[in-house]
């Protein structure tokens, strides 16, 4: 029997206020195997850890139970501490009496009883623990970045600069992402293209970066240090190397009726096209949905006119297999569809537009050459109304209950830009709150309101409708507490942003967790904000939650530094809590083999000596470097030959026993 020590943490008053620490210590003391039990205000503090180390030596402890916060918080801390005192780190178990007890149950008597039950379960489990030794696995010195927007590019550049190879997979024909569509940035009003395109060029020309555009990651297998990804490179029907980006094909293409995605559908583009002038790669792509040759096997004009002979209608999707040590998710965002907001008239009226559409209307490279005009008739607008929080902070099913964070600032930017360029236009902004947390943000907002004469109305808009050739915005002014109607030529909706639809699929593929809004979950909200809970998966940009450009760039850099920190390692310490097959019990039936998601189980013909019977048997053998410790095999095995170290059948049943004991 082990000598078990039990250490009960008060966590200041976090635990001690609703759990009777003395009772827990007293109850632990009489459990079989417990030779020492004590308590301390903060077990995780250096002083607390020292108490544990001293006790291990003094009482010759070979098992330790820490009754404190969640093991997800400090299990690693106490395991390290065990190691320092010469104890195998896996001889430590945590009883979670904070998140699962003291913070849940306000009644001290109730909380104490439950705490004792959980402590007893941990003691029962640790009694069956065995020392485990971690193995090692290798690291592929190459990273994959999924998404070629500003987040992905920044991460890729930072990793590449550190000397590691990076592949950027972008689903669209060009990198650049949402930022490429933006005209100016807040609060400095500098040109987005001027700061983004150099980064795009840097990425394209960096010797360590490979851009894989018009491609999607199809599957990912493996684990931290050794991922294996399959990337589908979609057929462009244009030879990427041969194409010079001259644009002759675009000019000659007779099929010019496709909506131009880059301009938010405000104008059209040909079937063969380069998304925008600064696109990287600056290579045409053929839209198979509208191309006459590909849909009806006629035309083929582009092929005739292309001097570079780059058009290739026979191109097929191509599958690329690559190995990576780390993967960064930078899938970004999209504005939500606003047609569900019927009362705001987006679908009914061309002059009701979204902010991103406005962004294109004001961009020199946009459909109007940068001239702000009504979409309906091209005339000059005199009154523009902005409506904030369309779908943001909206608890109904059509909206998002979070704040999209960037809209207050970009609307202020738009208002200011309009007033600056067209002083004759009246600009009114309806808002719930103006949120300007950020360096120089509030100053920027005040300038708009005070220096540029933008009218801000605190209130929500009930309805936008057409009357006598004008739009009427009907809303409430919460300050003057009255219903108001404002005539407008254009109405701009600050649509909420949501995670890119590809994020969910990518997260599933990577087994990275995702929240209810399809934003990827970070390993710890505060302490590990750029890592996914899945080892080797990192988060960059809006895929993790709404953020503006500087934040995105900062997070992208942080993710890069985490990736670099991983890739510089030659070996990773593997989790020793892996499956193990008992040779005496295994009958070689392959149930475990069939179920293993990592291909970690193989078979060997092995000579065994089963209590005197010597024979060659087909036995399951687990490769501990591949096994990730999910334990699915241990349940698939009917004989119980397969078990999971650290969570053995007997350990879990011992916990069940302890918990159910009345």
């Amino acid at each position, binding site marked *: 029997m082990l000598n078990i020590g039990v250490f009960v943490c008060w966590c200041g008053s976090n635990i001690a206020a609703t759990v009777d620490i003395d009772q827990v210590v007293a109850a632990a003391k009489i459990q079989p195997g417990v030779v020492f039990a004590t308590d301390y205000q903060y077990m995780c503090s250096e002083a607390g850890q020292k108490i544990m180390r001293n006790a291990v030596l003094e009482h010759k402890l070979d098992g330790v139970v820490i009754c404190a916060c969640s093991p997800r918080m400090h299990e690693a801390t106490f395991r390290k501490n065990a190691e320092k005192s010469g104890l195998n780190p896996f001889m430590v178990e945590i009883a979670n009496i904070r998140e699962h007890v003291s913070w849940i149950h306000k009644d001290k008597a109730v909380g104490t009883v439950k705490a004792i039950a959980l402590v007893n379960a941990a003691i029962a489990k640790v009694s069956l623990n065995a020392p485990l030794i971690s193995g090692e696995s290798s690291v592929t010195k190459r990273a994959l970045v999924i998404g070629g927007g500003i987040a992905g590019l920044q991460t890729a550049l930072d990793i590449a600069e550190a000397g590691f190879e990076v592949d950027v997979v972008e689903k669209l024909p060009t990198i650049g992402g949402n930022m490429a569509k933006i005209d100016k940035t807040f609060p400095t009003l500098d040109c987005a293209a001027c700061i983004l395109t150099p980064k795009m060029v840097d990425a394209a020309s960096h010797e360590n970066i490979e851009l894989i555009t018009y491609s999607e990651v199809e599957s990912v297998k493996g684990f931290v240090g050794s991922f294996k990804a399959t990337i589908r490179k979609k057929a462009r029907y244009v030879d990427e190397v041969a194409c010079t980006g001259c644009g002759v094909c675009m000019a000659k293409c007779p099929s010019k009726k496709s909506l131009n995605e880059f301009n938010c559908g405000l104008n059209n583009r040909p079937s063969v096209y380069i998304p925008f002038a600064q696109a990287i790669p600056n290579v045409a792509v053929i839209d198979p949905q509208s191309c006459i040759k590909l849909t009806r096997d006629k035309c083929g004009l582009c092929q005739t006119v292309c001097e570079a002979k780059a058009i290739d209608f026979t191109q097929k999707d191509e599958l690329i297999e690559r190995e990576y040590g780390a993967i960064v998710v930078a899938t970004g965002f999209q504005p939500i569809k606003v047609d569900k907001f019927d009362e705001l008239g987006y679908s009914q009226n061309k002059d009701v537009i979204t902010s991103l559409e406005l962004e294109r209307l004001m961009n020199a490279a946009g459909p109007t050459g940068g001239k702000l005009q009504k979409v309906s008739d091209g005339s000059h607008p005199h009154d523009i109304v902005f409506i904030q929080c369309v779908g943001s902070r909206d608890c109904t099913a059509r909206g998002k209950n979070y704040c999209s964070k960037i809209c207050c600032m970009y609307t202020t930017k738009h208002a200011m830009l309009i007033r600056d360029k067209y002083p004759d236009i009246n600009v009114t902004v309806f808002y719930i709150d103006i949120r300007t947390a950020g360096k120089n943000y509030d100053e920027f907002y005040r300038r708009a309101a005070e220096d540029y004469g933008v009218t801000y109305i605190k209130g929500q808009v009930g309805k936008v409708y057409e009357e006598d050739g004008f739009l009427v915005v009907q809303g409430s002014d919460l300050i003057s507490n009255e219903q108001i109607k404002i005539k407008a030529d254009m109405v701009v909706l600050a649509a909420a942003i949501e995670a890119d639809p590809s994020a969910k699929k990518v997260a599933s593929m990577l*087994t990275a967790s995702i929240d209810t809004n399809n934003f990827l979950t970070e390993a710890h909200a505060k302490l590990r904000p750029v890592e996914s809970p899945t080892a080797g998966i990192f988060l960059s940009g809006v895929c993790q939650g709404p953020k503006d450009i500087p934040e995105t760039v900062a997070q992208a850099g942080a993710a890069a530094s985490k990736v670099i920190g991983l890739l510089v390692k030659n070996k990773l310490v593997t989790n020793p809590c892996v499956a193990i097959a008992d040779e005496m019990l295994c009958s070689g039936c392959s149930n475990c083999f069939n179920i293993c998601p990592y291909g970690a189980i193989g078979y060997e013909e092995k000579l065994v000596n089963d209590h005197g019977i010597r024979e060659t048997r087909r036995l399951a053998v687990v490769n501990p470097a591949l096994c990730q410790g*999910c334990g699915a095999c241990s349940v698939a095995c009917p004989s119980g030959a397969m078990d999971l170290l650290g969570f053995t059948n007997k350990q879990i049943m011992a916990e069940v026993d302890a918990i159910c004991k009345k």
Partner: protein
Amino acid sequence: MQEVKEFKPNIVAFCCNWCSYAGADLAGSSRLSYPAEVKIIRVPCSGRVNPMFILKAFEKGADGVIICGCHPGDCHYNTGNFYARRRMALLYSMLDFMGIEKGRTRVEWVSAAEGAKFANVMNKFTSDIIELGECVKLGDIRCKD
């Protein structure tokens, strides 16, 4: 007057480390409340939950057993919860076939972000179990007081 002893059910919750255990942690750090009768056992994955554990819990006097894992498709180990879903569908169906009350076993998918859902699920499950009362059809007589 005879005092009626309030029925305190014994509920075992198997929670996968990556989603539901974290969801339970979130319920705690959000100070949400659910009954203290729910006691959580951490397992790496819902696919680690062996039917033996569930029966063991009933044997030892549990009145309800609930398994919580990542939402299907979001398993940290890709597929563990898919297997768990099939196994538990069959096991629960068998328990029902043998006449054990249906409400005593559940599987719920709770993500790391769903602290509130975790608390709601546990509140609901506990009230269902209280309604069902003590489990008398399963359980070893030698574990009863």
